[in-house]
């Protein structure tokens, strides 16, 4: 299972890349894409949407199931990765390159897990 050291993680299998204090990109982990199986659609909240911690920022549809992606931060969606809407299989191929949104003007953030802590969590769930 690939868990890059430089990223932060949530218990619900999102990864967070902090670009600066007020900006982050968010995606789903290798473990998440593996569990979902072939991903065929993603529906992402629009640019400019204001999010609170725990708000849905995207729905990811795999052949088998639909899964919510939750925002671990409060802020405003400043960019949406439209490539994923056209080629959702990128989630499976390169989960850590497949950022879903960039969130700016971050005002709050939930406690995030380090790569080591996330690895422990995944080992328990696997």
């Amino acid at each position, binding site marked *: 299972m690939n868990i890059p050291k430089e990223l932060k993680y949530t218990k619900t299998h999102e990864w967070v890349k902090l670009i600066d204090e007020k900006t982050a990109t968010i995606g789903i982990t290798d473990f998440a894409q593996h569990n979902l*199986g*072939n991903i*065929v*659609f993603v*529906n992402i909240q629009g640019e400019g949407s204001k999010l609170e911690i725990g708000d849905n920022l995207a*729905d990811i*549809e795999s*052949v*088998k199931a*639909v899964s919510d992606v939750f925002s671990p931060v409060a802020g405003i969606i400043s960019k949406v990765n439209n490539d994923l*809407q056209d080629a959702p299989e990128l989630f499976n191929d390169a989960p850590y390159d497949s950022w879903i949104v960039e969130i700016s003007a971050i005002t709050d953030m939930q406690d995030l897990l380090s790569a080591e802590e996330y690895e422990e969590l995944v080992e328990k769930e696997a």
Partner: protein
Amino acid sequence: MELKTPLYQNHVIGGGKIVPFAGYLLPVQYEEGVIAEHNTVRTKAGLFDVSHMAEVTFKGSDALKNLQYLLANDFTNMVDGQVRYTPMCNPEGGIIDDLLVYKIRDNDYMLVVNASNRFKDVTWMKKNIFGDVQFEDISDHVAQIALQGPKSLDILRKLADEKYIPVKYYSFIEKGLVSGIECIVSQTGYTGEGGFEFYCKPEDASFLWDKLLEAGKEFGLIPCGLGARDTLRLEAAMPLHGHEMTDELTPLESDLGIFVKMDKADFIGKSAIVKKSPVTKKRVGLKLIDKGIAREESKIYVNGKEVGITTSGTYAPYLGYPIAMAIIEIEYTAIGTIVQIDVRGRLISAEVVKLPFYKKG
């Protein structure tokens, strides 16, 4: 508690991702994933463990009479070695289950029913049998493997003599030999492709599975899980009990009218089906126009009016677009009708299309 099929170890060794299903631990997929497994069955061949399916036997001089009364189809004109699909209805005309009837010979039949309905079906059958008939649930003594896809015949020919290979669709050889294993060899399946199903002793299943995989290697055969089994049957518009068929829906509402013989003598559910005809709602196929997947139990609207509900929905891997089946009010079932489906609060447009979505070439 979940049971293990005789092939459980084969799945674990083969890299299957195991999930509980209908009381059994079965692989939902292997390493290749649902889409690859699905498309391999369409283009080459796939192997499925369907040992969870349940089998019962009807024997005796009144066996046929019992089937005629219990089931909606007609079995009087079957020949030995023939298979026939049928709904089994309750007195209200709803579908208790759908099943396959194997005529082994006069006074000797085997029925294959859904795993999740096994105990309900057995209770119902026992309650309604009459006359000279010996009824038995033999499920625990039967394992079942399905070989599906255009390369199935080439693969089977490597392991079985021609005389053990049934020539016609929906026919079977009672005592076939495949790789030395005695089994029923049946030309049936649940994928929309040609192929064979093997009913063997549980203790022989693991060996037969490995032999089939080995023989199929050169033809691209791979093991497949429940995920692909579901997308394949859905793409082929084959109904699934608990979805397109329920204890409340009549076979006519489920669009299975050709399997109900209203001109035969009385059978359970007949008078209720007559009363509920013509139907006011019916199963249809939907092709989604907008992006998204309408899974089961999504509400369907036309001009803001609720007109139905989806019963199954997925992304169709071979066709490359999302599809669903649904039960819709009869006024809105014409091919080409545009409906809206509520997918998690979002309205998605879909078109009523002809079934099946996919038909093999």
